[in-house]
């Protein structure tokens, strides 16, 4: 597959590395030679210096034969322009990164496709949605919803007090209302078999239905913290602004931003109830005077991953029971995990999930990336005569690293056992490692 990525920023380079590791033909286009830097020598991809909104540069990058064109420069107008041009020059599919909520509204979708922009990604919006969910379920590391919430995937870090630890899966009762799709133990991802069991400090991914979420909380030995009343956000980034729009109005929000000009800009973007404070959120004195001790959630969204990790640690020490941090440096995620700083948000992974979705030849309802595991959860609609409908699940010979989490039949979540026959019209939720995703395509033909 030939993929052209315009914009060698954080998201662009991450996508390029990830896709080249999957043996795709990646061309990275950016006008700054400096940004492209060592990309070509360190990774198996091609870099081209040029303005993504110039036809000549796009031709140089070979857009005419590209299967996918991804525009992820910081400027949304340029991204849209680049996609329009790429579509005109013959790119099969185009994706533009945007920074405007209005563009995402379904009523405009058709217009954007008519322009030649097939898909829009708004990583900041996705990140804000994740933050809003993680505030609602404070004991959950990550919560993903599928098929209009018919099925949910819950990632929980279990401790010694959980009732399900040290019990082999084959000894669990048969009528349990959940399905464990994966376990992350240290740096190792385990697709569980009968003899495996959960040990403390594992992150366990449960696939279940909405009404059983309290049950999962119970078996994991987690207590529900009192309702979130106040939040401090460090860093007035675009994610911070989107987050303030998504969380309920009765929550008291403070944004601490160190740049005064940005503070003034923020005031124009957020609602009146949000208080903007000019200062350094790493300063314990400032945090104390802004009442960190009475704050329920601390969200670190500055541009710097290290700062975010440290700030979250400091906030936890100051008595905040819940912290969320944006960590853009993917190598740090597992490290941050070991330090127990709470949920992790990663813009690149969120952007990558959309790209995965667009790369699949079959249609797929949604692909969602897990932050703490190199894995994705994908929802596939099943059609008449698809390979997957011909045999019961246990005889399908699913590839290693893939696992059916459940299926949605007539809008209701159903648990899948080895003998289940998948029927046309169902939606199947697959849990799989990132590199395995493409292998699943053949089951839906």
């Amino acid at each position: 597959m030939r993929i052209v990525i315009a914009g060698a920023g954080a998201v662009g380079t991450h996508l390029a590395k990830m896709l080249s590791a999957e043996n795709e033909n990646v061309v990275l286009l950016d006008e700054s030679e400096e940004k492209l830097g060592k990309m070509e020598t360190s990774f198996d991809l091609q870099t081209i210096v040029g303005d993504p909104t110039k036809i000549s540069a796009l031709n140089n990058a070979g857009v005419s034969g590209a299967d996918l064109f991804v525009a992820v420069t910081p400027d949304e107008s340029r991204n849209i322009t680049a996609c329009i041009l790429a579509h005109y020059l013959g790119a099969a599919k185009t994706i533009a990164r945007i920074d405007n909520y209005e563009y995402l509204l379904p009523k405009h979708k058709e217009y954007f496709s008519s322009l030649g922009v097939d898909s829009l990604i708004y990583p900041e919006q996705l990140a804000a949605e994740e933050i809003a969910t993680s505030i609602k379920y404070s004991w959950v590391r990550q919560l993903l919803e599928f098929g209009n919430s018919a099925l949910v995937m819950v990632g929980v870090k279990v401790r010694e007090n959980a009732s399900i630890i040290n019990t082999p899966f084959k000894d669990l009762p048969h009528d349990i209302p959940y399905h464990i799709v994966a376990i992350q133990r240290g740096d190792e991802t385990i697709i569980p078999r009968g003899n495996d069991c959960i040990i403390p400090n594992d992150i366990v991914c449960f696939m279940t239905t909405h009404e059983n979420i309290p049950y999962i909380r119970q078996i994991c030995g987690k207590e529900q913290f009192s309702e979130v009343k106040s939040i401090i956000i460090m860093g007035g980034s675009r994610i911070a602004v989107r987050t303030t729009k998504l969380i309920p109005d009765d929550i008291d929000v403070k944004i601490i931003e160190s740049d005064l000009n940005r503070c003034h800009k923020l005031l124009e973007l957020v609602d009146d109830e949000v208080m903007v404070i000019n200062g350094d959120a790493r300063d314990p004195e400032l945090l104390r005077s802004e009442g960190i001790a009475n704050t329920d959630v601390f969200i670190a969204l500055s541009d710097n991953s290290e700062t975010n990790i440290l700030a979250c640690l400091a906030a936890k020490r100051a008595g905040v029971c819940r912290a969320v941090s944006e960590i853009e440096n993917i190598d740090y995620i597992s490290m941050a995990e070991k330090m127990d700083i709470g949920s992790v948000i990663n813009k690149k992974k969120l952007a990558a999930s959309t790209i995965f979705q667009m790369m699949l030849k079959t249609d797929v309802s949604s692909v969602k990336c897990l932050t703490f595991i190199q894995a994705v959860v994908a929802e596939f609609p099943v059609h008449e005569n698809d390979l997957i409908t011909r045999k019961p699940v246990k005889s399908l010979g699913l590839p290693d690293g893939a696992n059916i989490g459940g299926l949605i039949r007539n809008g209701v979540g159903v648990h899948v056992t080895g003998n289940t026959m998948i029927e046309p019209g169902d939606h199947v939720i697959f849990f799989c490692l990132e590199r395995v995703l493409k292998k699943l395509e053949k089951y839906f033909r």
Partner: protein
Amino acid sequence: MFHPKVIFRILGMLLFIEAAFLLGGVAVSLYYGEATLKPLLYSLGIIVLAGLSLVTFFKGGERSISRKDGYVVVTLCWVVFSLFGTLPYMLTGSIPTFTDAFFETMSGFSTTGATILQDIEALPKSILFWRMMTHWVGGLGIVFFTVAVFPMFGLNDVNLFSAESVGPIRSKLHPRISVTARWILTIYIALTIACTVSLRIAGMGWFDAVCHSMSTIATGGFSTKQASIAAFDSPAIEYVLTFFMFVSGVNLSLLYLAIFKVRPMALLRDTEFKTYLMVAAAFSVIIGVALVFTSDLGVEGSLRASLFQVVSLQTTTGFATVNYAVWMPLLWLLLCALMFIGACSGSTSGAMKCARISILYKVMWNEFKRIVHPNAVIPVRMTGRIIPSSVQSAILAYTVIYIFMLVAGLFVNMAFGVDFLDAFSLSVASVGNVGPALGNYGPMDSFAPLPAVVKWFSAFQMLVGRLEFFAVLLLLTPVFWKRR
């Protein structure tokens, strides 16, 4: 830089417009067959002649006007209009002295509504109509009227327009000034007609209905009766007037959007309108309850009297249905507060305006917040828009000048032998373009007994209050007259 030729030429042209408005008085005189016809025609002739000579004498020169010219033209045109506006009064002998006549015209054009007349009913109808005409023109502003009604004069110059149109936050309805002005004029005329018809239905005669609606929509305050609205003794008329006074106190641009573009929500979202509504409601209730217990008006009568007086004084109209000068003294203070607050910016009313009061309140409140959160960056928002600190400090400066002007008035009034209560309320009422004051110069009284100096200074206060200080006072600063 100044361009005297342009300034005087424009003043000349504006005089034609005053003459055009005077034609209304002439028409009334003809209709009722009054003896005032001849003096009115003389006045008309003098005004036209003066205009003609200015226009012909200052031919040529620059075509466009600078920003400085704009301020000079606007201030001068209000003075010149008031000077020539005295002619009908003096030539008909209705008001024999020049001081009184100038006070009355300035009070008219600035929509103040204070009168030196002692027997209004005895005046010819054409003169009464001319008084109302000064209100109606002054309500929107002389330059504004010209831009809207006579676009062929080519006066739709931005510099001229912005020197007269004041207010803390400006909003245009249309990219072109002349179109915006015409739209505002449309709503102004529509309101006047609606008010006239409503008053007629409520039981007023046609002449009184027309006169009072012109006075109401301009939030002026002249009445055709010495006892103001109390003379009609009709609850229906009082309710109709209360409603139209209140509506006239709303930002006309917003009103245009709400009525003609059917966007009533624009009104309810507006912070200033909400403040206006809340102030009016709160004061009406407090004063109403106080009146129930301290007066013999009865419950309905008390509330009606309270509502009418509150709306009348807040919109700086100055009509009265009862003599509030005899109310308990605590209520006077509340009435003075209303005269100070005023209605919405962009309306025909005077005084501080609710937008400024609301911003001042928020600025003050933010200071408290800043003590608790020393690092917080706290905005002042109006209808979701952030008010930049430059505008905030402009409003603070405005408030200081306002208070300075009040104190100056108090000083002058007392220096010439007016009692403290009279002097203070007179100053508040003049700067705020309200009209009637308290004490001996209440709503049922005439301003005739005031010393001449006090009359002149009050007239000056009316002018600066109407043009919101800066345009007029700028001309008194040395900086303005420096060559560079």
